[in-house]
């Protein structure tokens, strides 16, 4: 069979060394830039053990139900109530103490229940299904020049999840997240669908928000919104003993809407230096700026990985963080974009080790004394320790009268701690001992700890810090007599 010269050329191009060399180069570069930052597998699965973000509490579940329609969810809950089957509710599963699953339970995966139902520009509200993420909401309201009143520092979480843990973020003017919900539709443990407001005589909101999925499925909420203001970023380096006065002054002046701070965990400036980031009002509104996407996660992760090595490298990381923050001073940013912190760069994958969060709340007036005590309690250089602290972020949590199991009984600073430790039994026990000691120290200063994380604390500590636990428990039994809504968190603290 004769072959045309054109065919010969076609056949030979793939054998050309230049072609093959180019192919290898292009492919290698493509792989290099696409090696995923997040490599761990976690979450809901029926084929093996279900976990949440930390993978610390693996458990076998009965089945996963992807939330579809309200009637379907209602049927599942009614059947479970009749058959005494247990149900857990899961969103993005970034809570870290088994709040989203339970042994042999049906897990409702709410991520598919995510429709935007209504945007009321005039009254500045949005009605949304609770499987939607904060990012979904931002995308829907940004064209209207609107922004959220309160959200978490990152926008990846589901609304239902954030409300169930009554999360807080960088806003310092609108109070707790639960206070920004005007109306809620809930599927109760008996399978009833109720639409309630804050004035509801049965106080469903008080139990459901910060109720860790134990009182029913939040189907939708109507959130209060505000204008998408434009802010000027103000950054400043401080000593930790100057922070109380700095923050009091900030609250007295109306000019700042959002604020957070970061305390050094580097050996040479351990709990001594900090920097603050304020978002000051410019009086301008924005309708056009696009929502920012996470960029430079690989670079950010590399920098954090350097800091994770501890010792001199952690000092280097801290110095660079300060430079980076200083470079932001004077920049303008919209409210929506200020509420979209990066998250992918924090990914950590190392077999045999885990990174977890803990959050301690301390009264604003106690900050200086607390930090001083903490400096004596923790080693400044944890390079050779199993229990390592990689970051402490400080945020303001205003007094919360909206939820029953509330963590902010007064105006508090929340210290969000990023901790790394080993997964061997003795390493976990060691981490437990340190965190329990830390909790006692916080308690001494009139503070407490946040419940969406792994249960390092003892039940006695929980009961001291959350004295309303008993009433919460009684109400749970009253409203959910067959124990339909169940999770590992409840099992540990209440059963």
């Amino acid at each position, binding site marked *: 069979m004769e072959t045309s010269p054109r065919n010969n050329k076609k056949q030979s191009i793939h*054998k050309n060394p230049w072609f*093959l060399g180019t192919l*290898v180069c292009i492919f290698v570069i493509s792989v*290099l830039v696409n090696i*995923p930052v997040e490599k761990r597998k976690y979450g809901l699965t029926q084929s093996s053990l279900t976990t949440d973000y930390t993978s610390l509490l693996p458990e076998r579940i009965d089945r996963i139900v992807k939330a579809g329609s309200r009637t379907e969810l209602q049927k599942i809950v009614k059947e479970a109530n009749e058959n005494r089957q247990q149900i857990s509710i899961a969103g993005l599963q970034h809570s870290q103490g088994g709040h989203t699953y339970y042994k042999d339970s049906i897990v409702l995966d709410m991520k598919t229940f995510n429709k935007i139902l209504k945007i009321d520009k005039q009254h500045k509200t949005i009605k949304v299904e609770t499987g939607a993420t904060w990012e979904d909401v931002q995308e829907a309201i940004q064209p209207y020049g609107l922004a959220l009143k309160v959200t978490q520092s990152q926008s990846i979480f589901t609304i239902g999840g954030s409300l169930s843990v009554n999360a807080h973020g960088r806003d310092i003017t609108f109070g707790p997240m639960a206070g920004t919900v005007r109306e809620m539709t809930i599927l109760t443990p008996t399978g009833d669908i109720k639409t309630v407001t804050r004035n509801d005589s049965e106080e469903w909101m008080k139990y459901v928000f910060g109720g860790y999925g134990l009182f029913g499925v939040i189907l939708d909420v109507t959130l209060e919104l505000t204008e998408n203001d434009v802010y000027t970023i103000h950054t400043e380096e401080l000593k930790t003993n100057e922070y109380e006065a700095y923050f009091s002054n900030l609250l007295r002046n109306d000019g700042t809407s959002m604020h957070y701070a970061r305390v050094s965990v580097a050996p040479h400036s351990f709990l001594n230096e900090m920097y603050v980031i304020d978002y000051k009002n410019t009086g301008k509104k924005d309708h056009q700026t696009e929502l920012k996407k996470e960029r430079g996660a690989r670079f950010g992760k590399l920098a954090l990985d350097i800091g994770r090595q501890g010792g001199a490298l952690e000092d280097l990381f801290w110095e660079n963080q300060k430079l980076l923050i200083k470079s932001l001073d004077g920049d303008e940013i919209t409210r929506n974009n200020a509420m979209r912190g990066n998250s992918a760069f924090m990914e950590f*994958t*190392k077999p045999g080790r885990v990174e977890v969060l803990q959050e301690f709340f301390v009264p604003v007036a106690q900050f200086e004394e607390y930090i001083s005590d903490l400096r004596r309690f923790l080693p400044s250089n944890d390079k050779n320790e199993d229990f390592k602290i990689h970051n402490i972020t400080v945020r303001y949590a205003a007094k919360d009268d909206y939820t029953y199991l509330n963590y902010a009984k007064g105006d508090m600073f929340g210290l969000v701690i990023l901790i790394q430790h080993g997964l061997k039994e003795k390493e976990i026990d060691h981490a437990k001992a340190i965190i329990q000691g830390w909790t006692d120290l916080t308690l001494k200063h009139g503070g407490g700890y946040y419940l969406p994380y792994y249960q390092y604390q003892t039940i006695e500590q929980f009961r001291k810090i959350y004295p309303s636990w008993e009433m919460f428990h009684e109400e749970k039994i009253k409203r959910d007599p067959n124990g339909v809504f169940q999770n590992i968190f409840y099992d540990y603290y209440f059963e």
Partner: protein
Amino acid sequence: MKILSERYVPLVVTVGQVVIFPYYILWLKEASLTFTLFTWLFAAFSFSAALGYRLFQARKKPAISFIPFLYMGMGGIYLLVGNISTSFEVLPYLTLIFQVILGFLQGYHHAWHIMQNTFRLHAINHYLLVGMIMVGLSFVKIISPAIFITVFGTILFICGLVFLFKKNKDSVIFKLGDNEETEVE
């Protein structure tokens, strides 16, 4: 058959590569963590092997002088794989480099190997040896793939040295014999 090393070393290398494959796969799976990355790393190996193969063919005079260094290169990579203790954050990037180098060297070696007279004989011996060794390994309790990979890396490195040493020695004998063919066996 002029040189002993030319007869047996390629067989050791090709059999070894197949035998070590399951252990190497275990390591690679652990290093890549996700199935997507695992397949990408394989693809990088394949493309690079095609390049190595083609570059050997493109040479006007196949140069056997490269082969010992090629064995030592492969051995070096396996030794690194067996002994690396780096963060899982960096490992996928290193693994990609390893895969590209290994693919290139194996493609180049294969292109050279099939040109050798012993290749047809090796094919049968290769299958038989692999079968027997695999049956043998089934009785060995795996301690860690890293140990086997390190052992294979060392063997490859030694093969490279033997090949280099024997070839140099044979070429001296060849010269001393006034261009007469000298049987080493």
